């Protein structure tokens, strides 16, 4: 198997993994009380209560939806960009919390029952960002995008 082919497979697995992580973290938050995620958001001391409320309402579903589309490989370029921005946003939040020495009881990353220290989450997010980059660059061949494009392009011909 050629290097390119192996790289495509690995990139696809990376994309699927990031998708699974997003679905898992989103689902956990959806199934938990809204206020536990709100209190996690507020503990970063960046936004007020009303923004925290709407973020807690929207963010978990956004994570799940991006995750699903990433796994399926639909709008792959767009979704990898969205995931990249999401992880960068989390990194900024975590970094400012570390820099300010904030006492973040629960990072809110995987709900209230499954939470890592913010340093660990920061490192993990760096890995996800790398995975997303690889998926953006090389995972097109294993995607519904390619399947649909190939099918309808050949039909047109």
């Amino acid at each position: 198997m050629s290097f390119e082919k192996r790289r495509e497979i690995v990139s696809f697995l990376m994309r699927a993994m990031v998708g699974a992580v997003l679905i898992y973290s989103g689902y956990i938050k959806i199934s938990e009380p809204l206020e536990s995620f709100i209190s996690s958001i507020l503990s970063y001391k960046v936004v007020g209560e009303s923004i925290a409320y709407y973020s807690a309402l929207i963010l978990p579903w956004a994570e799940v939806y991006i995750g699903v589309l990433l796994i399926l490989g639909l709008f792959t370029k767009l979704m990898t960009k969205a995931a990249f921005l999401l992880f960068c946003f989390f990194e900024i939040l975590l970094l400012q919390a570390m820099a300010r020495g904030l006492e973040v009881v629960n990072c809110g990353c995987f709900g209230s029952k499954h939470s890592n220290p913010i340093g660990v989450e920061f490192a993990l997010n760096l890995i996800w960002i790398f995975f997303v980059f690889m998926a953006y660059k090389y995972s097109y061949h294993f995607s519904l995008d390619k399947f649909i494009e190939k099918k309808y392009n050949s039909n047109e011909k």
Partner: protein
Amino acid sequence: MKKILVVKIITALLSLFLTTVIILILNGLNSNITDTQKSPDYRIEGKKNAKIVIIEYSDFACPACANMNFYIKNLIKYFPEDFEINFKHFPLTNIHPYSFNAAVWVECAGVEENKFFEVGDLFFKNQKEWWNSKDYVKLFEKYTKEAGADVEKIKKCFNESKTVDMVKKDIQNADKMRLNSTPTFFVNGKIAVGGMELVEAIKKEKEK
């Protein structure tokens, strides 16, 4: 090109719709869980056998539980005849390292001194001070003294792990029901996860 985009959009919308349905069904499955088993007397507040019986699974180190503890105190204060609150332990030790010990300690305060809520309320109130402190035992002693309970007696009970099994029993119950967050309530047997659902469930029961 336009056709491809339309197909992609339709496929994406269908898959997202399916995902939403699956998630809502999975969450809906939890609503069939019930718990009507009462706590020991020293862990019950309000009027016994009141119209609305609430079972509360809580963690002394959880911020949302501390907020809800304040809310519940007010419920009992303003509607003393309407509610019976049963406290149950569900310490989330993977994120709150000393919450199990806190539960064991407060349980000792209930068993030994009948001061479960006096000590427990101070644990909630001072949560930020002890939740991640290695000196938590000293802080527990401080709160116990403040609550007017016999520190030595409770410390002895704690060191002998007398109440560990009682706390573990609650955790096992919660795990059996696959509860995954605190605070989780059962209002006349119906599950309410978090404060917002609790308020809604109380409203419904009051209207009956």
